[in-house]
Protein backbone atom coordinates (compact mmCIF):
# COMPACT_ATOMS: atom_id res chain seq x y z
CA UNK A 1 0.00 0.00 0.00
CA UNK A 2 1.25 3.45 -0.83
CA UNK A 3 1.28 6.30 1.65
CA UNK A 4 -1.14 8.21 -0.46
CA UNK A 5 -4.68 8.09 0.91
CA UNK A 6 -7.33 6.21 -1.01
CA UNK A 7 -10.11 8.29 -2.48
CA UNK A 8 -13.62 7.20 -1.51
CA UNK A 9 -17.04 8.26 -2.71
CA UNK A 10 -20.50 7.45 -1.41
CA UNK A 11 -23.78 8.06 -3.15
CA UNK A 12 -27.44 7.39 -2.48
CA UNK A 13 -30.09 6.94 -5.11
CA UNK A 14 -33.59 5.48 -4.44
CA UNK A 15 -33.00 4.41 -0.85
CA UNK A 16 -34.04 5.28 2.68
CA UNK A 17 -30.73 6.48 4.09
CA UNK A 18 -30.25 3.38 6.20
CA UNK A 19 -27.17 2.40 4.21
CA UNK A 20 -25.53 5.71 5.14
CA UNK A 21 -26.13 4.89 8.79
CA UNK A 22 -24.75 1.38 8.24
CA UNK A 23 -21.45 2.90 7.15
CA UNK A 24 -21.27 4.61 10.54
CA UNK A 25 -22.26 1.37 12.27
CA UNK A 26 -18.72 0.16 11.76
CA UNK A 27 -18.13 2.35 14.86
CA UNK A 28 -14.55 3.29 15.66
CA UNK A 29 -13.35 1.61 12.46
CA UNK A 30 -14.66 4.69 10.69
CA UNK A 31 -11.58 6.43 12.14
CA UNK A 32 -9.37 3.92 10.32
CA UNK A 33 -11.26 4.74 7.17
CA UNK A 34 -10.74 8.45 7.76
CA UNK A 35 -7.04 7.84 8.44
CA UNK A 36 -6.53 5.80 5.28
CA UNK A 37 -8.99 7.42 2.93
CA UNK A 38 -10.22 10.79 1.82
CA UNK A 39 -13.93 11.08 1.29
CA UNK A 40 -14.31 13.11 -1.87
CA UNK A 41 -18.04 12.81 -2.32
CA UNK A 42 -20.81 11.92 0.13
CA UNK A 43 -23.98 13.99 -0.21
CA UNK A 44 -25.22 13.05 3.27
CA UNK A 45 -22.07 14.32 4.99
CA UNK A 46 -19.79 16.24 2.64
CA UNK A 47 -20.73 19.30 0.64
CA UNK A 48 -19.28 18.27 -2.70
CA UNK A 49 -21.44 19.29 -5.64
CA UNK A 50 -22.20 17.22 -8.72
CA UNK A 51 -20.15 19.67 -10.79
CA UNK A 52 -17.13 18.96 -8.57
CA UNK A 53 -17.47 15.27 -9.39
CA UNK A 54 -17.81 16.11 -13.07
CA UNK A 55 -14.58 18.08 -12.85
CA UNK A 56 -12.62 15.06 -11.56
CA UNK A 57 -10.51 13.15 -14.08
CA UNK A 58 -11.99 9.78 -15.08
CA UNK A 59 -11.13 7.00 -12.63
CA UNK A 60 -10.12 9.60 -10.03
CA UNK A 61 -11.88 7.92 -7.09
CA UNK A 62 -10.49 4.59 -5.99
CA UNK A 63 -13.80 3.23 -4.69
CA UNK A 64 -17.36 4.43 -4.84
CA UNK A 65 -20.07 2.86 -2.69
CA UNK A 66 -23.39 3.34 -4.43
CA UNK A 67 -26.57 2.60 -2.49
CA UNK A 68 -30.13 2.86 -3.69
CA UNK A 69 -32.00 1.70 -6.76
CA UNK A 70 -32.30 3.71 -9.95
CA UNK A 71 -35.74 5.19 -10.56
CA UNK A 72 -35.11 8.73 -11.84
CA UNK A 73 -33.06 10.24 -14.66
CA UNK A 74 -30.93 12.05 -12.06
CA UNK A 75 -29.98 8.76 -10.40
CA UNK A 76 -29.24 7.20 -13.75
CA UNK A 77 -27.00 10.12 -14.70
CA UNK A 78 -25.18 9.89 -11.36
CA UNK A 79 -24.70 6.15 -11.82
CA UNK A 80 -23.00 6.76 -15.18
CA UNK A 81 -20.98 9.68 -13.82
CA UNK A 82 -19.75 7.80 -10.76
CA UNK A 83 -18.95 4.75 -12.85
CA UNK A 84 -16.75 6.92 -15.02
CA UNK A 85 -15.05 8.64 -12.10
CA UNK A 86 -14.39 5.50 -10.01
CA UNK A 87 -11.91 2.68 -10.43
CA UNK A 88 -14.08 0.34 -8.36
CA UNK A 89 -17.85 0.69 -8.11
CA UNK A 90 -19.52 -1.19 -5.27
CA UNK A 91 -23.25 -1.84 -5.40
CA UNK A 92 -24.09 -1.27 -1.74
CA UNK A 93 -27.24 -2.56 -0.06
CA UNK A 94 -30.35 -4.37 -1.24
CA UNK A 95 -31.75 -1.47 -3.27
CA UNK A 96 -28.63 -1.16 -5.42
CA UNK A 97 -28.01 -4.93 -5.58
CA UNK A 98 -31.51 -6.32 -6.17
CA UNK A 99 -33.84 -3.31 -6.31
CA UNK A 100 -34.89 -3.30 -2.68
CA UNK A 101 -38.12 -1.99 -1.22
CA UNK A 102 -38.31 0.86 -3.79
CA UNK A 103 -38.28 -1.91 -6.41
CA UNK A 104 -41.71 -3.02 -5.27
CA UNK A 105 -42.98 0.05 -7.12
CA UNK A 106 -42.59 -2.15 -10.18
CA UNK A 107 -46.08 -3.46 -9.42
CA UNK A 108 -47.21 -0.05 -10.59
CA UNK A 109 -46.10 2.62 -13.07
CA UNK A 110 -45.31 6.30 -12.71
CA UNK A 111 -48.90 7.52 -13.03
CA UNK A 112 -50.14 5.09 -10.40
CA UNK A 113 -47.33 5.98 -8.00
CA UNK A 114 -48.01 9.71 -8.48
CA UNK A 115 -51.74 9.19 -8.08
CA UNK A 116 -51.26 7.37 -4.77
CA UNK A 117 -48.60 9.70 -3.42
CA UNK A 118 -49.97 13.07 -4.50
CA UNK A 119 -53.72 12.61 -4.92
CA UNK A 120 -55.23 9.55 -3.25
CA UNK A 121 -53.20 9.65 -0.04
CA UNK A 122 -55.74 10.48 2.71
CA UNK A 123 -53.44 12.96 4.43
CA UNK A 124 -52.60 14.82 1.23
CA UNK A 125 -54.50 17.95 0.31
CA UNK A 126 -54.08 18.63 -3.37
CA UNK A 127 -57.39 19.82 -4.83
CA UNK A 128 -55.78 20.89 -8.10
CA UNK A 129 -54.24 17.45 -8.56
CA UNK A 130 -50.72 18.77 -9.04
CA UNK A 131 -48.14 16.06 -9.75
CA UNK A 132 -44.43 16.49 -10.51
CA UNK A 133 -43.56 17.51 -14.06
CA UNK A 134 -40.18 17.41 -15.72
CA UNK A 135 -40.59 20.99 -16.96
CA UNK A 136 -42.61 23.95 -15.78
CA UNK A 137 -42.70 27.50 -17.09
CA UNK A 138 -42.65 30.32 -14.56
CA UNK A 139 -42.06 34.04 -15.02
CA UNK A 140 -38.39 33.67 -14.27
CA UNK A 141 -37.91 30.95 -16.83
CA UNK A 142 -38.18 27.19 -17.14
CA UNK A 143 -37.96 24.97 -14.04
CA UNK A 144 -36.80 21.40 -14.46
CA UNK A 145 -37.09 18.21 -12.42
CA UNK A 146 -35.55 14.79 -13.11
CA UNK A 147 -37.78 12.31 -14.90
CA UNK A 148 -39.42 9.63 -12.74
CA UNK A 149 -39.34 6.27 -14.54
CA UNK A 150 -42.06 3.62 -14.75
CA UNK A 151 -39.62 0.87 -13.83
CA UNK A 152 -37.14 0.77 -10.95
CA UNK A 153 -33.78 -0.82 -11.74
CA UNK A 154 -30.91 -2.22 -9.74
CA UNK A 155 -27.54 -0.51 -10.24
CA UNK A 156 -25.97 -3.24 -12.40
CA UNK A 157 -28.92 -2.99 -14.79
CA UNK A 158 -27.77 0.54 -15.55
CA UNK A 159 -23.95 0.48 -15.33
CA UNK A 160 -21.15 -2.03 -14.95
CA UNK A 161 -20.64 -2.94 -11.29
CA UNK A 162 -17.47 -4.41 -9.73
CA UNK A 163 -18.70 -5.75 -6.39
CA UNK A 164 -21.97 -6.38 -4.63
CA UNK A 165 -22.63 -5.89 -0.93
CA UNK A 166 -26.22 -7.02 -0.27
CA UNK A 167 -28.35 -6.51 2.82
CA UNK A 168 -30.84 -4.01 4.13
CA UNK A 169 -28.56 -2.51 5.26
CA UNK A 170 -25.40 -4.56 4.60
CA UNK A 171 -24.18 -6.17 7.84
CA UNK A 172 -21.37 -4.31 9.60
CA UNK A 173 -19.04 -7.32 9.41
CA UNK A 174 -19.37 -7.45 5.62
CA UNK A 175 -18.73 -3.73 5.30
CA UNK A 176 -15.60 -4.09 7.43
CA UNK A 177 -14.56 -7.08 5.34
CA UNK A 178 -15.00 -5.12 2.13
CA UNK A 179 -13.22 -2.02 3.41
CA UNK A 180 -10.35 -4.13 4.77
CA UNK A 181 -10.03 -5.94 1.45
CA UNK A 182 -9.87 -2.59 -0.33
CA UNK A 183 -7.12 -1.30 1.97
CA UNK A 184 -5.14 -4.50 1.76
CA UNK A 185 -5.67 -4.93 -1.95
CA UNK A 186 -7.22 -8.36 -1.47
CA UNK A 187 -10.53 -7.81 -3.24
CA UNK A 188 -11.95 -10.98 -4.81
CA UNK A 189 -12.51 -11.27 -8.55
CA UNK A 190 -14.66 -8.68 -10.23
CA UNK A 191 -18.38 -9.36 -10.02
CA UNK A 192 -18.16 -11.08 -6.64
CA UNK A 193 -20.81 -10.74 -4.00
CA UNK A 194 -19.02 -9.85 -0.77
CA UNK A 195 -20.97 -12.26 1.45
CA UNK A 196 -20.86 -15.97 2.30
CA UNK A 197 -22.32 -18.41 -0.21
CA UNK A 198 -24.59 -20.20 2.26
CA UNK A 199 -28.19 -19.41 3.11
CA UNK A 200 -29.46 -17.60 6.19
CA UNK A 201 -30.52 -20.99 7.66
CA UNK A 202 -26.85 -21.86 8.00
CA UNK A 203 -26.44 -19.03 10.52
CA UNK A 204 -29.80 -19.39 12.24
CA UNK A 205 -29.98 -20.19 15.94
CA UNK A 206 -33.16 -22.25 15.71
CA UNK A 207 -33.14 -26.04 15.69
CA UNK A 208 -34.17 -27.57 12.37
CA UNK A 209 -35.83 -30.93 11.81
CA UNK A 210 -38.24 -32.36 9.26
CA UNK A 211 -40.39 -29.66 7.78
CA UNK A 212 -44.12 -30.05 7.34
CA UNK A 213 -46.72 -27.48 8.18
CA UNK A 214 -50.48 -27.61 8.16
CA UNK A 215 -50.96 -23.91 7.54
CA UNK A 216 -49.15 -20.58 7.34
CA UNK A 217 -49.41 -18.37 10.38
CA UNK A 218 -48.78 -14.66 10.45
CA UNK A 219 -46.69 -13.29 13.29
CA UNK A 220 -49.64 -11.81 15.17
CA UNK A 221 -51.29 -15.22 15.26
CA UNK A 222 -48.40 -16.71 17.21
CA UNK A 223 -48.86 -16.45 20.96
CA UNK A 224 -45.81 -18.33 22.07
CA UNK A 225 -42.77 -19.01 19.95
CA UNK A 226 -41.26 -22.48 20.20
CA UNK A 227 -37.51 -22.94 20.13
CA UNK A 228 -37.39 -24.38 16.62
CA UNK A 229 -37.23 -23.33 12.96
CA UNK A 230 -39.85 -20.63 12.34
CA UNK A 231 -40.90 -22.23 9.04
CA UNK A 232 -41.65 -25.43 10.96
CA UNK A 233 -43.94 -23.33 13.15
CA UNK A 234 -45.80 -22.13 10.08
CA UNK A 235 -44.19 -18.69 9.98
CA UNK A 236 -43.16 -17.69 6.50
CA UNK A 237 -39.39 -17.24 6.72
CA UNK A 238 -37.36 -16.47 3.58
CA UNK A 239 -34.20 -17.94 5.13
CA UNK A 240 -33.88 -21.00 2.86
CA UNK A 241 -33.91 -18.84 -0.31
CA UNK A 242 -31.77 -16.00 1.02
CA UNK A 243 -28.03 -15.47 1.07
CA UNK A 244 -26.59 -15.26 4.57
CA UNK A 245 -23.80 -13.13 5.96
CA UNK A 246 -26.07 -11.27 8.33
CA UNK A 247 -25.64 -13.76 11.16
CA UNK A 248 -29.40 -14.31 10.92
CA UNK A 249 -29.91 -11.11 12.88
CA UNK A 250 -33.69 -10.99 12.34
CA UNK A 251 -33.97 -14.58 13.59
CA UNK A 252 -31.90 -13.61 16.62
CA UNK A 253 -34.66 -11.13 17.37
CA UNK A 254 -37.24 -13.90 16.88
CA UNK A 255 -38.46 -12.44 13.61
CA UNK A 256 -38.52 -14.32 10.30
CA UNK A 257 -36.09 -13.53 7.50
CA UNK A 258 -37.70 -11.32 4.84
CA UNK A 259 -35.02 -11.92 2.23
CA UNK A 260 -32.80 -8.80 2.11
CA UNK A 261 -29.65 -10.82 1.35
CA UNK A 262 -30.98 -11.58 -2.11
CA UNK A 263 -30.91 -14.95 -3.89
CA UNK A 264 -28.43 -17.64 -2.91
CA UNK A 265 -25.51 -18.16 -5.35
CA UNK A 266 -26.54 -19.82 -8.58
CA UNK A 267 -30.22 -19.16 -8.04
CA UNK A 268 -31.94 -17.29 -10.85
CA UNK A 269 -34.92 -16.18 -8.83
CA UNK A 270 -35.25 -15.84 -5.08
CA UNK A 271 -39.06 -15.86 -5.06
CA UNK A 272 -39.28 -18.92 -7.28
CA UNK A 273 -36.96 -20.80 -4.95
CA UNK A 274 -39.04 -19.82 -1.92
CA UNK A 275 -42.25 -20.87 -3.66
CA UNK A 276 -40.60 -24.21 -4.29
CA UNK A 277 -39.56 -24.56 -0.66
CA UNK A 278 -42.93 -23.51 0.69
CA UNK A 279 -45.02 -25.66 -1.64
CA UNK A 280 -42.92 -28.64 -0.63
CA UNK A 281 -43.72 -28.36 3.07
CA UNK A 282 -47.19 -26.82 3.20
CA UNK A 283 -50.08 -29.25 3.54
CA UNK A 284 -47.79 -32.26 3.56
CA UNK A 285 -49.77 -34.19 6.14
CA UNK A 286 -52.44 -36.20 4.36
CA UNK A 287 -51.68 -34.41 1.10
CA UNK A 288 -53.07 -37.32 -0.92
CA UNK A 289 -56.50 -36.66 0.54
CA UNK A 290 -56.53 -32.87 0.08
CA UNK A 291 -58.93 -31.58 -2.55
CA UNK A 292 -57.86 -28.78 -4.90
CA UNK A 293 -60.18 -26.42 -3.01
CA UNK A 294 -58.48 -27.28 0.27
CA UNK A 295 -55.06 -26.67 -1.30
CA UNK A 296 -56.26 -23.28 -2.56
CA UNK A 297 -57.49 -22.41 0.94
CA UNK A 298 -54.04 -23.22 2.35
CA UNK A 299 -52.46 -20.94 -0.24
CA UNK A 300 -54.88 -18.11 0.62
CA UNK A 301 -52.68 -17.52 3.67
CA UNK A 302 -49.92 -16.25 1.38
CA UNK A 303 -51.55 -12.84 1.44
CA UNK A 304 -49.26 -11.00 -0.95
CA UNK A 305 -47.09 -13.29 -3.11
CA UNK A 306 -45.09 -10.51 -4.82
CA UNK A 307 -44.49 -8.57 -1.62
CA UNK A 308 -43.59 -11.71 0.30
CA UNK A 309 -41.34 -13.49 -2.16
CA UNK A 310 -39.78 -10.43 -3.82
CA UNK A 311 -39.73 -7.93 -0.97
CA UNK A 312 -36.23 -6.75 -1.88
CA UNK A 313 -35.77 -8.09 -5.36
CA UNK A 314 -38.58 -7.51 -7.84
CA UNK A 315 -36.40 -5.51 -10.32
CA UNK A 316 -33.90 -8.37 -10.53
CA UNK A 317 -36.44 -11.21 -10.55
CA UNK A 318 -36.99 -13.18 -13.75
CA UNK A 319 -40.23 -11.26 -14.19
CA UNK A 320 -39.11 -7.85 -13.04
CA UNK A 321 -42.30 -5.83 -13.09
CA UNK A 322 -46.04 -6.09 -13.40
CA UNK A 323 -47.01 -6.19 -17.04
CA UNK A 324 -48.36 -2.80 -18.09
CA UNK A 325 -51.93 -2.86 -19.32
Amino acid at each position, binding site marked *: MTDEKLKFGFYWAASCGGCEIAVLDIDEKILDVAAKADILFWPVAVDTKYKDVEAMPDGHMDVCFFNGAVRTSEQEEMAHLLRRKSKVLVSFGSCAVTGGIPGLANVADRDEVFHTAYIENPSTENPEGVVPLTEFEVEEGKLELPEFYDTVKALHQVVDVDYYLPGCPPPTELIVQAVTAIFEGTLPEKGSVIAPSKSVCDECKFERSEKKITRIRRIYEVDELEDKCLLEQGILCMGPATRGGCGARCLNANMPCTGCGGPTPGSL*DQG*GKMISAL*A*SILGLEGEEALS*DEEVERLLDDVVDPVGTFYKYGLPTAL*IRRRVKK
Partner: protein
Amino acid sequence: MEEFEPSVIAFLCNWCSYAGADLAGTSRLKYPPNVRDIRLMCSGRVDPVFILDALKEGADGVLVAGCHPGDCHYQSGNYKTNRKVRLIRRLLSDLNIEPDRVRFEYISASEGQKFADVVTDFVGQLKEMGPSPLKEECK
Protein backbone atom coordinates in the same frame (compact mmCIF):
# COMPACT_ATOMS: atom_id res chain seq x y z
CA MET B 1 -51.97 -11.79 -41.29
CA GLU B 2 -50.74 -15.22 -40.30
CA GLU B 3 -52.45 -16.90 -37.38
CA PHE B 4 -50.58 -16.58 -34.08
CA GLU B 5 -48.82 -19.85 -33.21
CA PRO B 6 -48.11 -20.00 -29.49
CA SER B 7 -45.00 -21.75 -28.21
CA VAL B 8 -45.60 -24.08 -25.32
CA ILE B 9 -43.01 -25.64 -23.04
CA ALA B 10 -44.21 -28.90 -21.48
CA PHE B 11 -42.49 -30.40 -18.45
CA LEU B 12 -43.44 -34.08 -18.41
CA CYS B 13 -42.61 -36.69 -15.83
CA ASN B 14 -40.67 -39.72 -16.99
CA TRP B 15 -43.00 -42.35 -15.60
CA CYS B 16 -46.47 -41.19 -16.63
CA SER B 17 -46.89 -38.07 -18.71
CA TYR B 18 -43.88 -38.46 -21.01
CA ALA B 19 -44.97 -42.06 -21.66
CA GLY B 20 -48.47 -40.69 -22.30
CA ALA B 21 -47.05 -38.23 -24.85
CA ASP B 22 -45.07 -41.08 -26.40
CA LEU B 23 -48.23 -43.17 -26.65
CA ALA B 24 -50.00 -40.26 -28.37
CA GLY B 25 -47.20 -40.36 -30.93
CA THR B 26 -47.06 -44.09 -31.48
CA SER B 27 -50.87 -44.15 -31.71
CA ARG B 28 -50.56 -41.49 -34.43
CA LEU B 29 -52.93 -39.15 -32.63
CA LYS B 30 -53.10 -35.64 -34.01
CA TYR B 31 -52.30 -32.64 -31.85
CA PRO B 32 -50.83 -29.19 -32.56
CA PRO B 33 -47.05 -29.09 -33.06
CA ASN B 34 -46.63 -26.04 -30.80
CA VAL B 35 -45.43 -27.95 -27.79
CA ARG B 36 -41.78 -28.60 -26.85
CA ASP B 37 -41.53 -31.46 -24.40
CA ILE B 38 -38.93 -31.57 -21.65
CA ARG B 39 -38.68 -34.87 -19.82
CA LEU B 40 -37.94 -34.84 -16.11
CA MET B 41 -37.75 -37.79 -13.77
CA CYS B 42 -40.72 -36.46 -11.78
CA SER B 43 -43.11 -33.53 -12.00
CA GLY B 44 -41.82 -32.79 -8.50
CA ARG B 45 -38.52 -31.81 -10.16
CA VAL B 46 -40.24 -28.82 -11.72
CA ASP B 47 -38.75 -25.84 -9.98
CA PRO B 48 -41.00 -22.74 -10.13
CA VAL B 49 -37.90 -21.01 -11.50
CA PHE B 50 -38.14 -23.22 -14.63
CA ILE B 51 -41.67 -21.96 -15.24
CA LEU B 52 -40.74 -18.31 -14.71
CA ASP B 53 -37.66 -18.69 -16.88
CA ALA B 54 -39.64 -20.33 -19.68
CA LEU B 55 -42.12 -17.45 -19.64
CA LYS B 56 -39.33 -14.89 -19.53
CA GLU B 57 -37.56 -16.54 -22.45
CA GLY B 58 -40.67 -16.22 -24.59
CA ALA B 59 -42.93 -19.21 -23.97
CA ASP B 60 -46.60 -18.30 -24.37
CA GLY B 61 -47.66 -21.13 -22.12
CA VAL B 62 -46.17 -23.74 -19.81
CA LEU B 63 -47.72 -27.16 -19.32
CA VAL B 64 -46.68 -29.25 -16.36
CA ALA B 65 -47.92 -32.83 -16.29
CA GLY B 66 -47.40 -35.60 -13.78
CA CYS B 67 -48.84 -38.87 -12.55
CA HIS B 68 -52.37 -39.09 -11.19
CA PRO B 69 -52.79 -38.72 -7.42
CA GLY B 70 -51.59 -41.91 -5.76
CA ASP B 71 -49.52 -42.92 -8.80
CA CYS B 72 -46.34 -40.86 -8.36
CA HIS B 73 -43.29 -43.07 -8.81
CA TYR B 74 -41.66 -41.14 -5.98
CA GLN B 75 -44.86 -41.12 -3.95
CA SER B 76 -45.59 -37.42 -3.60
CA GLY B 77 -43.82 -35.28 -6.23
CA ASN B 78 -47.06 -34.58 -8.07
CA TYR B 79 -48.78 -33.15 -4.97
CA LYS B 80 -45.91 -30.76 -4.37
CA THR B 81 -45.93 -29.56 -7.94
CA ASN B 82 -49.68 -29.09 -7.88
CA ARG B 83 -49.13 -26.64 -5.03
CA LYS B 84 -46.14 -24.99 -6.72
CA VAL B 85 -48.11 -24.37 -9.89
CA ARG B 86 -51.04 -22.95 -7.95
CA LEU B 87 -48.74 -20.53 -6.12
CA ILE B 88 -47.04 -19.51 -9.37
CA ARG B 89 -50.45 -18.85 -10.93
CA ARG B 90 -51.28 -16.52 -8.05
CA LEU B 91 -47.95 -14.73 -8.49
CA LEU B 92 -48.50 -14.30 -12.23
CA SER B 93 -51.96 -12.92 -11.72
CA ASP B 94 -50.53 -10.25 -9.39
CA LEU B 95 -48.03 -9.37 -12.11
CA ASN B 96 -50.82 -8.94 -14.66
CA ILE B 97 -50.02 -12.11 -16.57
CA GLU B 98 -52.90 -14.49 -17.32
CA PRO B 99 -52.52 -17.33 -14.80
CA ASP B 100 -54.00 -19.73 -17.37
CA ARG B 101 -50.71 -19.56 -19.25
CA VAL B 102 -49.47 -22.10 -16.71
CA ARG B 103 -51.38 -25.35 -16.49
CA PHE B 104 -50.98 -28.48 -14.42
CA GLU B 105 -52.51 -31.80 -15.54
CA TYR B 106 -52.46 -35.40 -14.44
CA ILE B 107 -51.67 -37.59 -17.45
CA SER B 108 -50.92 -41.29 -17.04
CA ALA B 109 -48.82 -43.51 -19.30
CA SER B 110 -51.97 -44.95 -20.86
CA GLU B 111 -53.58 -41.58 -21.55
CA GLY B 112 -52.17 -40.74 -24.98
CA GLN B 113 -55.58 -39.42 -25.93
CA LYS B 114 -55.71 -37.17 -22.87
CA PHE B 115 -52.27 -35.75 -23.70
CA ALA B 116 -53.41 -34.94 -27.25
CA ASP B 117 -56.65 -33.41 -25.92
CA VAL B 118 -54.90 -31.30 -23.28
CA VAL B 119 -52.35 -29.96 -25.78
CA THR B 120 -55.08 -29.22 -28.34
CA ASP B 121 -57.19 -27.44 -25.75
CA PHE B 122 -54.25 -25.52 -24.26
CA VAL B 123 -52.95 -24.33 -27.63
CA GLY B 124 -56.47 -23.22 -28.58
CA GLN B 125 -56.79 -21.33 -25.32
CA LEU B 126 -53.39 -19.64 -25.82
CA LYS B 127 -54.31 -18.65 -29.38
CA GLU B 128 -57.32 -16.85 -27.97
CA MET B 129 -55.18 -15.14 -25.32
CA GLY B 130 -52.61 -14.02 -27.88
CA PRO B 131 -48.85 -13.71 -27.43
CA SER B 132 -47.47 -13.57 -23.89
CA PRO B 133 -47.24 -9.96 -22.68
CA LEU B 134 -43.78 -10.78 -21.34
CA LYS B 135 -42.38 -10.87 -24.86
CA GLU B 136 -42.71 -7.08 -24.95
CA GLU B 137 -41.97 -6.56 -21.26
CA CYS B 138 -38.74 -8.56 -21.09
CA LYS B 139 -37.10 -7.07 -24.18
